[in-house]
């Protein structure tokens, strides 16, 4: 049976907007976070050339002001995304199920060229489901740990729940490290998956060719 390649709707318009709006918002949060982090550098000492390259030194006040403005937009976009996925039913593609974890291992082995069998041809495979759900939980984590630092007295119960002020600060920092790691893997996977997949995140449309075996893991 031969099917001609056809165009299919892959990502809804709302999800594409949430995704692309989040990119500059999260970037601004990390940028302003770096302006703040520079002032003391409690955990990791970034090299001076790195700070200079991004014009980071001596901008603590500016960093705080940006951080405390953009946080609202980052939060609203994230909350709107979660509400949308729930209401539209898109969450069904995104939330991992029991098979996702085994599948994620298979996908990883395939991506590392240790396993021949291609990942399943679904919108999101198990590895993606885990990654995309984790990143949303991490976003929630950043909001919660951030709030616990920002209002550590009036929301003292939240700060206590996270193990105290210093713990919340460390958690907030680690989550950011997580985003940066996610970003690099994500970009790598998008490049591997190719143009058709990337275009789908911009246009919503994807060329589906049943004849062809999976040409890579969609990112």
């Amino acid at each position: 049976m031969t099917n001609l390649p056809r165009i299919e709707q892959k990502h809804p318009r709302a999800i594409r907007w949430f995704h692309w709006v989040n990119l500059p918002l999260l970037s601004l949060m990390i940028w302003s976070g770096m302006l703040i982090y520079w002032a003391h550098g409690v955990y990791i000492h970034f090299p001076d050339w790195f700070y200079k390259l991004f014009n980071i030194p001596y901008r603590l006040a500016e960093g705080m002001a940006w951080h405390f403005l953009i946080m609202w937009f980052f939060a609203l976009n994230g909350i709107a995304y979660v509400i949308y996925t729930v209401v539209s039913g898109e969450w069904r593609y995104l939330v991992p199920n029991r098979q996702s974890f085994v599948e994620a291992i298979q996908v990883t082995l395939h991506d590392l060229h240790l396993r021949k069998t291609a990942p399943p041809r679904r919108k999101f495979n198990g590895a993606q489901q885990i990654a995309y759900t984790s990143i949303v939980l991490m976003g929630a984590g950043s909001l919660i740990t951030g709030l616990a630092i920002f209002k550590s007295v009036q929301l003292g119960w939240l700060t206590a729940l996270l193990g105290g002020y210093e713990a919340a600060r460390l958690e907030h920092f680690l989550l950011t490290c997580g985003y940066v790691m996610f970003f690099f893997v994500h970009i790598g996977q998008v490049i591997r998956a190719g143009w058709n997949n990337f275009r789908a995140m911009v246009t919503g449309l994807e060329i589906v060719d049943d004849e062809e075996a999976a040409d890579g893991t969609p990112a």
Partner: protein
Amino acid sequence: MERPLKEQTRRSFLTGGIAALAGFGAWRWIGSRNLEGDVPWPLRRALQTNEELTRDYFRPTRLAREFPRGTSGMPKVNGEVGIDDDDFDVNKWRLEVHGLASAEGQATFTLADIQAFPKVEFVSELKCVEGWSKRVHWGGTRLADFARRYPPARSGTDSYVGLATPGGDYYVSLDMASALHPQTLLCYEMEGRLLEYSHGAPLRLVVPIKYGIKNLKCIGRITFSRGRPPDYWGERGYDEYAGF
């Protein structure tokens, strides 16, 4: 089949490009506005909006976390604005208080006068805007106890307290609710010893519900006022509220 896809691709990338330019433009626009307190005014508005929300939510019964004795230590000396007077004589020091409800409206106090109030001690975290924090054992007089004995002329929600070093080089503003918070101290002891000059001898402000920048060292003058007094770091790009 290819044509509608090509058309959609063109349109989507165009929309995306315009949106990206608009976003970049908004970022540049905000960053290039006139400065207000050394920060572009839209950012200042954001800080003020956050402050209004915080002050609405504020309850004086919510306390900064306190820690057991023996878990604390001296913080580093971080900033010497207003306490760089080599000829400073603790014995000649007096605290001037303005804006009192009394007929004179002002009064002068010695350290012994402040120490005559009930002494309050606790260990709390000194939290710096730079991103470090340090548990310190404080001892002193509640500003609220002082204000009960020497009531300010004004005490509504639009009233503030301004504190300044003897020469006036460093100064902070406190909203009245934060000033009267039970953990806000006129502090004369750190780690069980009288203050050193580098930490604000003979009397400093300790306000654990605010960032370290508000914890003014070496108080020379306290002014109760209507309207917000100037704030050293508020004029240098920081949030004037700076409260947790």
